């Protein structure tokens, strides 16, 4: 009985460690490569660890692009967008999940339909809209189109809200609470884990967004990291992998921090709120 339990745990851990290794390999490779000399990086028999660790790639990275500036741009733009999406999409989701109004289902279908349209289709017309608003090459061009919420976030949050039993707000309604109060004081705290899930998703998505910032931003000082780093990855010169991986390593770190910060919210938050 006890032995079978030990064997079970051993088996579980072995599988998990094997899986974790596969998950870690590209990450380790990325970090290791960022400390390698060019002569060390690409060979048909790749070595995992740098033979002579070097900061050359990081030094070059900082000299090639205004990294700090672009890092701050990315952070600022992403945080504003994520906060905006969480607020406005949760409001939209509340309307879809809790309010009755004519055209609700039709409008929701339109939201759903937009999810299936690839970004490349809307790229040029959206660029024209942004240009007409005079936003080209400003932070507004990056923030404006996304900050008012996304169909995806609204959709996810609506699904979460539908699972919240109506009784919870009935009491508040009897006490004369309005919809804003119910939304802000009752529903939002209950969907906190969902907000964390959507927040992580949006953070990763906008942190890594490439095509749109590429088209709407021209100045080096307003570029975001993905675009700045892409310049290192492509060119008639060929690719300097070390510098590229140094940039990628620094780019990924904030995403890991965000995940670790929200991990508890996502996982324990659901348990606490005790949703069905």
């Amino acid at each position, binding site marked *: 009985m006890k032995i079978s339990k030990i064997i079970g745990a051993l088996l579980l851990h072995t599988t998990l460690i094997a899986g974790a290794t596969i998950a870690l390999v590209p990450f380790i490779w990325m970090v290791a490569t960022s400390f390698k000399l060019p002569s060390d990086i690409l060979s048909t028999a790749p070595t995992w660890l740098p033979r002579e660790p070097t900061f050359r790639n990081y030094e070059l990275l900082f000299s090639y692009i205004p990294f700090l500036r672009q890092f701050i741009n990315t952070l600022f733009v992403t945080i504003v967008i994520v906060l905006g999406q969480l607020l406005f999409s949760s409001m939209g989701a509340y309307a879809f999940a809790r309010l009755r109004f004519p055209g609700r289902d039709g409008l929701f279908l339109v939201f759903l339909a937009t999810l299936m349209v690839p970004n490349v289709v809307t790229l040029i017309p959206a660029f024209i809209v942004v240009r007409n608003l005079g936003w080209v090459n400003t932070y507004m061009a990056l923030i404006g189109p996304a900050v008012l919420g996304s169909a995806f976030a609204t959709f996810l949050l609506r699904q979460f809200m539908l699972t919240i039993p109506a009784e919870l707000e009935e009491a508040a309604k009897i006490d004369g609470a309005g*919809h804003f109060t119910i939304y802000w004081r009752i529903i939002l705290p209950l969907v906190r884990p969902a907000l964390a899930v959507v927040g992580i998703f949006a953070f990763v998505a906008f942190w890594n967004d490439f095509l749109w910032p590429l088209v709407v931003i021209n100045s080096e000082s307003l570029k975001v990291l993905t675009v700045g780093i892409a310049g290192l990855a492509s060119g008639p010169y060929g690719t300097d992998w070390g510098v590229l991986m140094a940039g990628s390593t620094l780019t990924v770190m904030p995403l890991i921090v965000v995940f670790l910060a929200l991990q508890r919210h996502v996982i324990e938050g659901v348990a606490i709120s005790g949703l069905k």
Partner: protein
Amino acid sequence: MTATDTTSATAWRPSRRRSRERLRESLYAAVFLAPNVLGIGLFVVVPVIAGLAISFTNWDLLGEASWIGIDNYVALWSDALFWTSLRNTLFYTVLVIPGGLILSLLLALGLSGKMRGIRFYQAIFFLPYVSSTVAIALVWKWIYNPDYGVLNVFLRGVGLPAPNWLGDPTLALVSIAIVSIWQTAGYNMVLFVAGLRAIPKHYYEAARIDGAGPITIFFKITLPLLMPTIFFVSATSLIASFQVFNLVFVMTKGGRAIPPASMCSTFGRTGFRSSKWGTHRQWPTSFS
């Protein structure tokens, strides 16, 4: 919005107080939805409609546009590449969604208990989701290398055939789907862990008292109660697989034998360098 919903309209029979209540609720809805409708309308819906309109012209982004009716669609219909990429997108979707669901659910089941180091494992499995796609693609290209890649060295070692993972057109889709599943498994796992934690313990206790085995409990309790999460994960994967582009582009950039795995990457391959944008632009639109 022009959309109206007759069912919900008839469902509310008019009575004076109710109709005032209804009006109030609609006004609230308008306020709550205003930011969303404005943002999505201006930056997604209008562009989609414009994109649709452009697909009836011969605009190549550079010259003048003139109406050519459905010519683009006729050309598309007879373009073998379009059908190939449509087929590939569907095939890829069929691979990625169930594969991704099963893997991430298994991971979540393994990582939802009270074991030590759970959060550590979760964080590690989440890493691929945030790692640089370029780094991921490169490492997997090495893993898949037909001659000295880890995978084939292993397969040869145990006496199995060693296929050309990225060189063979059909297999390439499977290979890319594997990478994609692996990359998103960590994120979906987090969703499933959250879903599993939310299932009240007493359901399980009650089932156990009734003498249900672990398999019965899984299918009768866990799975039904996880349905909302399964729905999410499927929806996200579906959307992502229709938009898969980066991974395909980076993984197959050097080796172009692979038929475009998705419409987006077809667009990427031809559109980025091509002149006849008009012909390619409306592929995704016509599809959605």
